[in-house]
């Protein structure tokens, strides 16, 4: 499990430490990944950051052959993927 955001590595490291997260959080500060994956939320950033482009919430499960096996693109800002959904998707890839 890996996370991606446009935050700097330092910000992500602070988050990992403060929250005790053990999964890697990648820093896509130049927006290359979120553009390539087309998960950009244009001007979605905080007003304090001049409304910069950030990632929309999105979850993908990729199998060992590199193929996408599950995608969750919420259309509701307050609703994100639940762990059970991802685990069910993972179980489905083993069948």
């Amino acid at each position, binding site marked *: 499990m890996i996370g991606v955001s446009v935050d700097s590595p330092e910000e992500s490291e602070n988050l990992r430490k403060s929250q005790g997260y053990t999964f890697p959080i990648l820093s896509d500060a130049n927006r290359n990944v979120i553009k390539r994956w087309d998960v950009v939320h244009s001007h979605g950033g905080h007003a304090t950051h001049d409304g910069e482009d950030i990632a929309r919430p999105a979850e993908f499960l990729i199998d060992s052959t590199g193929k996408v096996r599950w995608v969750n693109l919420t*259309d509701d800002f307050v609703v994100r993927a639940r762990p059970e959904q991802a685990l069910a998707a993972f179980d489905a890839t083993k069948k």
Partner: protein
Amino acid sequence: MKRSWNWRIWAGALVVIAGVVGYQVYCVRVPALRDRPWLNLPIILVGLVMIGVGLKRAFQQPELYRGKIFGSLVGGLMAMLALFFCFAMFIASHHILPVTKGAPQVGQVAPDFTPPDSKNEPVQLSALLSSSFAGNGDAVGAAGAGQTAGVLLIFYRGYW
């Protein structure tokens, strides 16, 4: 005779505010309460009912209870706050995020990437997928030791 200050109106207003603010400070951290404000709506409703009871007293027994003018103002404000909360949670939340059409779909090959992790070490998706790691603690293999079963990739808005 001194008129009662009609505490129900003010307590009700506090309850409504607690219901709205409580979502931000508490409920977003609780998975069962985060997606839909099932705890907040009853709290807000209780607050509005308390205000309603207070207002009823103020208008029906003005010789005993204060609050006809200020109470009405507070009641109106709190009703607007409750409406705004419902609008934000049930309607506006569907219009914040962009429609995403070009993202990789099921069955497609995931585009590779190599951004740095939080320790400035580059992480390559394809390398993670082909690695057979023994649970090095950082990259979390679903199977623990052995061949990677896959990668769960989560895009976050950031700004924590």
